[in-house]
């Protein structure tokens, strides 16, 4: 069949293109130009395309498949970068990779696949798409170290039905590199990409400051009672649960304090005792990968977090998550529902309602 493969120029998506081509499919490679690489790295006159686009084209040349570069700069700026900065300015902790997957990748590329008469979109994500009685199901990758299911919870069931994730069943990254090497791909030993793609060298605060300067302005660190206990250098540098960058406010009477809330409107960082938290977390923009219903399941509130037992209850405009044990949840992060290896849905964590 004709398959559209989203090729980033990295080893994972290159291996996907190679494996599908080897299996006899008509593979069409596409690489998204997400931002002006020359401008992002601050090199004057540099080409708008980075090394990754060059690498993707060389892999496609090697495989003898058609390859196209898609201009997604405006879409990425609006749907991902602006949202990223706005979210920080509101006092949230955004996950730009989820926004990108949700919009530029799965919404737009599934549509492009349809436009081009391709039956499937394939990506190099480490998740599994399995067929179940309710249709396509999203499952964690076989390799827990590589699992990206948390980042893909917002993929709709219709999108999932048209998608392939050939790496979800791979035992580990080394196996993927070995396949890339066996196929002779020029990126087989290319290092993994790090951090947020549009932020050079991890200076995400600069990106936020350029778009939403108020999020980088200093302000007060206060206790939940409103007592000013310190100063901060921009709320975009903080996330709920954080204990660093608090200076003198990090301790009170020998007790460690952490960020418990961020007040975007007043540019305040609110601190409280470490170990505090809530049992109720509200979600919006919930994506259900099973018919919406009250679920007893495990939830994950951050990409690196462990699973926590909870009950999820659908509401008119989202869902309520009732955790067995209190937790500090960061607004803007995702809360993903798991049962075993299967992802049943998820949503974005809302700021606590004012009391």
């Amino acid at each position, binding site marked *: 069949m004709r398959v559209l493969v989203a090729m980033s120029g990295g080893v994972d998506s290159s291996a996907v293109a190679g494996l599908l081509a080897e299996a006899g499919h008509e593979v069409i490679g596409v690489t998204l*130009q997400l931002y002006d690489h020359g401008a992002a790295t601050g090199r004057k006159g540099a080409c708008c395309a980075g090394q990754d686009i060059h690498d993707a084209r060389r892999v496609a040349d090697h495989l003898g498949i058609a390859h*196209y570069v898609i201009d997604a700069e405006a879409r990425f700026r609006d749907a991902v970068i602006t949202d990223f900065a706005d979210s920080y300015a509101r006092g949230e902790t955004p996950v730009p990779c989820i926004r990108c997957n949700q919009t530029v990748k799965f919404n737009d590329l599934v549509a492009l696949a349809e*436009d*081009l008469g391709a039956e499937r979109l394939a990506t190099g994500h480490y998740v599994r798409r399995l067929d179940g009685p309710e249709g396509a199901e999203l499952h964690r990758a076989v390799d827990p170290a590589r699992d990206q299911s948390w980042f893909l919870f917002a993929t709709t069931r219709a999108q999932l039905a048209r998608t392939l994730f050939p790496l979800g069943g791979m035992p580990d990254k080394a196996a993927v590199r070995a396949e890339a090497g066996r196929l002779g791909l020029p990126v087989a030993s290319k290092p993994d990409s790090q951090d947020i793609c549009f932020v050079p060298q991890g200076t995400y605060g600069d990106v936020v400051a350029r778009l939403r300067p108020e999020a980088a302005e200093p302000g007060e660190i206060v206790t939940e009672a409103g007592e000013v206990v310190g100063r901060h250098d921009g709320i975009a540098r903080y996330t709920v649960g954080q204990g660093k960058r608090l200076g003198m406010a990090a301790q009170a009477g020998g007790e460690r304090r952490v960020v418990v809330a961020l007040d975007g409107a007043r540019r305040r960082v609110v601190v409280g005792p470490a170990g505090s938290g809530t049992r109720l977390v509200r979600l919006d923009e919930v994506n259900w990968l099973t018919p919406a219903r009250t679920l007893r399941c495990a939830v994950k509130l951050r990409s690196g977090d462990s699973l926590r037992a909870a009950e999820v209850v659908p509401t008119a405009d989202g869902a309520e998550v009732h955790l067995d044990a209190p937790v500090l949840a960061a607004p803007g992060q995702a809360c993903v529902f798991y049962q075993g290896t299967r992802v049943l849905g998820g949503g974005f964590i809302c700021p606590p309602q004012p009391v």
Partner: protein
Amino acid sequence: MTYLDANATETLRPEARAAVLAALDGGGNPSSVHAAGRGARRRLEEARESIAERFGGRPSDLVFTSGGTEADVLAVHALGAGRRLIVGATEHDAVRSATRGAAVLAVDGAGVADLEALRRLLAEGGPALVCLMLANNETGTMQPMTEAGRLCRQAGALLHVDAVQAAGRVAVDFATLGADSMAISSHKLGGPQGAGALLVAPTLSAGLAPLIAGGGQERGRRGGTPPLPAIAGFAAAARAAGGAAALAVLRDAAEQGAVAAGAVVLGAGVPRLPNTTCLALPGVRAETQVIALDLAGVQVSAGAACSSGKVARSHVLDAMGAGALAGEAIRVSLPWCAGQADVAAFLLAYRIMAARLSRRAA
């Protein structure tokens, strides 16, 4: 495969191919004193004479370059020194990137330069260099060059004409064009890539300031050993080029068929290159159209291809006020050897694509 992207590069003419191979075997450096050098020099000068004659210039006023871009940049460098720059809004990037900060000469909805605006711009200050293309690469729109040249002469301005797309497709005669310099390119008229030329007015050609001084080749106007095989192929292609008017019949058939399938023609109703049409499909991204047609074996283009390969938004169509259609238009440019089968293959693929994508866009 159906190749309909001649404005990106023409299909190589058999005469040009033969001339390239003969020159490769001929060897020699035109600057050398010995017999091999003399042979190479003779072939170089014969090519120069042939191309100059073909386009109405004197051989001594023709400077070989690496291509159209270098010829444009050389003209701006040599003729623009100490002058204000006035540049057509739809010029090729070869000119635009060499003239940053220039006054922009607006065009109308069909891409034709506004001569009243040119008159005003010329009256605004001191001596100017005006850069205007004879025919546009994306729409084929021709500029009213005779009138533009007259305005420039009256105002004491110099005129550089980018004739890269026009040469070989419509009658181009430097002597009567009224321009002070004119850029042409080998591979846009069926020769090999790697050679171009700048024709310069007799009064300006002798002391033309080089971009690359090197060893003083081309009478000190362009250093570096000339690529003789490319130049020989260029001359052979220039001699063979012509008769493109017949392509207009095929182009019109392609255009009418596309319009019946929902396309809108941009740049219609004015003098155009006979081989070019710019077809917008409302609501469908140009990028998607180019990919869909390529997958169906029909090769066209859109906008200006960046080195990344992404389809950039067209500054030409933006300047024409095309609005959203600027991002929804493809360029179909028939090569010199196109026939009815090419048009039929194009229309078959176009109709299928338009039916599928227009429905989704609606």
